[in-house]
C-alpha cells in the first residue's frame, strides 16, 4: 500500500460513524473507506484463504475463484489447505497471544459453528464488514435465516456467507430401494445390513453432525438445543443419544471401531461397494459425484421425515489480517452472482446459493436459470426447510463425550 492511500483511509476513518457495539475492530480505516478505495488498496495483495482442504471439488472451486479475483481485481488468492478449520483459529489466537496485532498470517477463514463462536467470543474477527460489500444486499436473509444467525449465534456482519449446506443422506438405490427416513429406522436398517453405513470420525464436523442429527430426533427437549448446553439440559438429551448409538455402533462399518476421516472420504467407500448409506452436507452431493465418476450412477440423496440440519458456510477476516482489503474483495466476489452460480452448478459443487434470486438483476438470475438439473438432485420442496443447528456448545460437548465413551 502506498503512503497517500493509507493517509486517505485514515482520514476517511475519522469521518466514520460510531462503530456498532459488536465491532471487533472499531475504527479500522477499511470499515469506513468507500468501495473503490478498498479496491485500490486490495490491488496487488495476496490473500491467504485458510480453508479446510479435504475436498478436492471445493479446492477446485476455490482455485477457480482465485483465478477470477486475479483477473477481475488484480488480487491473488492462495488457498492454505487445512486439515481442520480449528488450525487457522489457533494460529490467530497464537498471534494475538504473541502480540502480533497486524500483519497476521491469516487473511480469510472458511468458518462457521464453534470456530466462528470461539473467534467472536475472543474478539478476533475484523469488522463488521459484511455491509461494506456491494454484493451483500442480495443475500436472502429472510428466506435463509442461517445466513445471519450461525448455530444460534448472531453473525452481526462479522462474516460473509458464501454457501448453504443441508444434511442429505446418500443411498445406493441399487442396494437400498427404500432408504430409512429416521435415525431410529437407520438403526433397524443397520441391524439388517451390518457394516454398510458409517459416519465420519467425530472430530470432523461431518461426523459430529451425524450425532447432532440424531440428537435432534432423540432429545426429549428440542428447544434446549438452541441454548448453550449445560449439565441439566445435556444429560437427558445425551443419554437418549448414547442409548441409541450404543445399539447402532456395532453394526457400523468396521464394527464402529474405525471411521472415515471426513465426509468426502465416504465417497470412494460407496463407489467400491463398502457403504450403502452415508451422510453428507450437500443435497447435490450425489449429482456432482456421479458426474465426476466418484459415486455409482445409482446413488440418490434422501432426507429424514423429521427434517435435516442446515447451516451456512461463511468467510471471516481475522482482526490482524495483513491483507484485509484483498480479503474483503474475495468475500465480495464469493457473494457475486457469478461465483454463486458457479458453486450452484451441479457439475462443480452443487451448493445452494445464499442469494435471493428475486433480488438479483436479470443477468444474474439468468446464470442460475442456465444451470442443468438431474435425477440425483433433490428439488427444494423434497428437501424441506432446514432444521436450525444447535448452539455450538452441543457440538463441543458431544465430541468430548464421544471420545470419552468410545475413544479409549
Amino acid at each position, binding site marked *: 500500500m502506498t503512503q497517500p492511500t493509507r493517509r486517505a483511509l485514515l482520514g476517511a476513518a475519522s469521518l466514520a460513524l460510531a462503530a456498532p457495539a459488536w465491532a471487533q475492530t472499531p475504527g479500522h480505516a477499511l470499515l469506513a473507506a468507500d468501495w473503490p478505495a478498498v479496491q485500490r488498496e486490495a490491488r496487488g495483495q495476496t490473500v*491467504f484463504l*485458510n480453508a479446510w*482442504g*479435504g*475436498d*478436492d471439488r471445493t*479446492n*477446485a472451486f476455490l*482455485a477457480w475463484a482465485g*483465478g477470477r479475483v486475479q483477473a477481475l481485481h488484480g488480487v491473488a488468492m*492462495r488457498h*492454505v*489447505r*487445512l*486439515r*481442520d478449520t*480449528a*488450525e*487457522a*483459529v*489457533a*494460529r490467530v*489466537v*497464537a*498471534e494475538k*497471544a*504473541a*502480540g*502480533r496485532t497486524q500483519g497476521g*498470517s491469516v487473511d480469510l477463514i472458511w468458518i462457521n459453528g*464453534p470456530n466462528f463462536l*470461539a473467534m467472536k467470543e475472543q474478539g478476533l474477527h475484523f469488522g463488521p464488514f459484511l455491509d461494506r460489500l456491494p454484493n451483500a444486499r442480495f443475500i436472502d436473509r429472510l428466506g435463509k435465516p442461517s445466513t445471519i444467525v450461525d448455530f444460534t449465534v448472531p453473525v452481526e456482519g462479522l462474516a460473509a456467507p458464501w454457501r448453504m449446506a443441508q444434511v442429505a443422506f446418500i443411498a445406493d438405490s441399487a442396494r437400498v430401494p427404500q432408504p430409512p427416513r429416521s435415525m431410529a429406522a437407520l438403526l433397524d436398517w443397520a441391524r439388517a445390513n*451390518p457394516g454398510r453405513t458409517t459416519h465420519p*470420525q467425530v472430530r470432523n464436523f461431518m461426523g459430529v453432525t451425524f450425532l447432532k442429527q440424531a440428537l435432534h430426533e432423540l432429545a426429549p427437549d428440542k428447544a434446549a438445543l438452541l441454548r448453550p448446553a449445560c449439565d441439566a439440559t445435556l444429560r437427558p438429551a445425551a443419554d437418549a443419544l448414547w442409548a441409541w448409538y450404543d445399539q447402532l455402533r456395532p453394526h457400523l462399518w*468396521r*464394527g464402529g*471401531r*474405525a*471411521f*472415515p*476421516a*471426513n*465426509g*468426502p*472420504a465416504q465417497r*470412494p*467407500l460407496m*463407489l*467400491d*461397494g*463398502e457403504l450403502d448409506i452415508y451422510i453428507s452436507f450437500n443435497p447435490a452431493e450425489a449429482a456432482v459425484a456421479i458426474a*465426476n*465418476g*466418484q459415486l*455409482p450412477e445409482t446413488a440418490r440423496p434422501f432426507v429424514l421425515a423429521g427434517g435435516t440440519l442446515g447451516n451456512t458456510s461463511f468467510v471471516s477476516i481475522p482482526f490482524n489480517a495483513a491483507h484485509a482489503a484483498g480479503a474483503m474483495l474475495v468475500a465480495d466476489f464469493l457473494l457475486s452472482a457469478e461465483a454463486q452460480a458457479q458453486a450452484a452448478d451441479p457439475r462443480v459443487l452443487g451448493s445452494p446459493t445464499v442469494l435471493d434470486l428475486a433480488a438479483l438483476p436479470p443477468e444474474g438470475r439468468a446464470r442460475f436459470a442456465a444451470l442443468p438439473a438431474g435425477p440425483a438432485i433433490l428439488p427444494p420442496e423434497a428437501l424441506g426447510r432446514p432444521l436450525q443447528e444447535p448452539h455450538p456448545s452441543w457440538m463441543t460437548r458431544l465430541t468430548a463425550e464421544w*471420545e*470419552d465413551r*468410545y*475413544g*479409549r
Partner: protein
Amino acid sequence: MRAAPWLTATLFLGPLAAGLAGTLLPAFGYLPALGGDSLSLDPWRALLAAPGLARSVMLTLGSGLAATLVALLLVLGFCAVTQGSAWARRAQAALAPVLATPHAALAIGFAFLVAPSGWLARLASPWATGWDRPPDLPIPGDPWGLALVLGLVLKEVPYLLLMAFAALGQVPASASLRAAAALGHRPVPAWFKLVLPQIYPQLRLPICAVLAFSLSVVDVALILGPGTPPTLAVLVLRWFGDRDLALWFPAAAGAVLLLGLVLGAILAWRLGERAVAALGRRWIATGHRGGQALLLRALAPAALGLLLAASLAGLAALIAWSLAGPWRFPEALPAGWTLRVWRAQSAEIAGPARATLLVAVLSTLAALGLVLAWLESGAGRRLRALVWLPLLLPQLAFLFGWQVALVRLGLDGTLAAVVWTHLLFVLPYVLLSLADPWAALDPRYARSAAALGAGPWRVFWAVKLRLLLRPLLVAAAVGFAVSVGLYLPTLFAGAGRITTLTTEAVTLAAGADRRVLGAYAALQAALPLLAYALAAALPAWLHRHRQGMRP
C-alpha cells in the same frame, strides 16, 4: 572454513535449545502469552486424564519397537545369507528407488495396495476370494497398528540395509568367514558370531534413529495408523492444532512424554543389546558349528523380495490411480486411462511442487556448503554428536517450541524458516554420506597438486571436488530426498503458507479422491527419484572423456 563446524553448531543449537525449552516450559505450565506464568503439574494431570492415552502410549511403543526390530532382523538375516554373493549388490540396486521415496508416498501406495478395496483384493476378486464387494476389514488403520508397522518396515529396511552394506565394506567380513569355514563352521551362524559383532557398533546410531523415528512419526501414522485412539504423536499434534489453546499445555506435556518414551526405548534397546550379546557369547562358547539355517535362507530373501515388490507395486498403484478412468471394484484394472486429473490439477499442483523443489534445493545446497567446509577444516569431530540430535529426538518435542520462537522472530511461514528447519534434518544425512568418501580420498592427490603450485582453493575446487563428484552428488540426492519427504518440519515452520507436495499429500490422504491423491503422491515420489537419477548420470556424462574417472 574453520568456523563451519561452529556455524553449523549455532544453526543447530538455536532451534534445538529454543525448541526444547519452548516445549518443556509449557509442559510444566509456563507460557506467559497464554496466561501460564507459574510452574505447575496441571498439564500432566490433563494429559493423564485424556481419553485413550494409555492405549495410545501402548500403541506407540508397540508399533515403534516392532517396526525397528522387524526391520533390523530382516536386514541382518538377509546380510547373513547373502554374504559374499552377487545378491547383496543386486538388492542394493533394486532398493535404491524405495530408499529415495518419501515415507508418505510409500505409505499411501501401500494403503492403495492392501486396503479391502485395494489392488491386491481387486486382483484376487472375485475369482479367488468370492468378493464382489470389499470385505469389512480394518486395513489400514487397524487398532493394533499392524499396517503402520508394515508401512514403516517398508521404508526402514532399505535404509538399514544400506547402512549394513556400508559397515560390511569396512570390516574383513569375507576373511572372517573363510577362517570360520576352515574351522568347520557353517557360514550363516558364523556370520552372526563373527561379522555381526564387528558391524553392529556402526549400525547402532542408524538403528536408534530408526527407533526414534518410528516412535514419533506423524505422517505415516496419519495415513496407516488407527484413529481412535491414534499414536501419541498424532494425539499431541491434534491438541496443538485445536482452537482451544489451553490444550497446548497438555500437548506440550505429551510431547515431553514422547521424548521420554523415545529416550526410554533407546535405553531399553541398549539393555537388550547387552542381553543379546551375553547370550551370543554363551552361544559362541558352546562351540557349536551351527546348521544350514535353511529356514532363514528361504525366509529372509523371500521377505525382502516381498517388501520390495509391495513398495514398487504401491508406487505403481499411485501412478495407476492418477491415470485411471472409471475403476470399480473388483475390476483389476481401470476401464480406461486418462490424463484428466493431471490436466485438471496441474495449476494447483504447480505451487506445492515449486515450493518443494525450492526448499529442497536450498536446504541441500546449504547443507553441502556447511558439510564441505566442515570436512575441509578437519575440525569439530566432537560436534558431530550434536548434528545427530535432530534425528534422535522426536520432531514434535522441539518443533512446537521452535515454531513459537519463529513467531516471536517474525520468521514463521517464511522460506528462510522452512529451509533452516529442513537443514536440521538434511545436514546429518549429507554429513553421513560424505564423511567416509572424504576421509578415504588419497591425500597424495592434494599434495601433488600443491607441489605443482596450486593454492588451497584451487586444490579444493579442481582436485578434491572433481575427484569426489560422485559421492558429492549422491550426498546431494540424499539430502534432496530427505527434504522432499519432511512433513512435520514443513507444517510447523511453514505455518500453512509454505506447503509442499508432502504436506498436501498427507492432507489429501484423509479422504480426497484417490486419483488426485495418486497424482500428488506420485509426483512426490518422482522428485527424489529424478535427483538420484541425475546424481548417477551427471558424473558419467561429465567424465565421458576421462577413462580413469569412470567406475
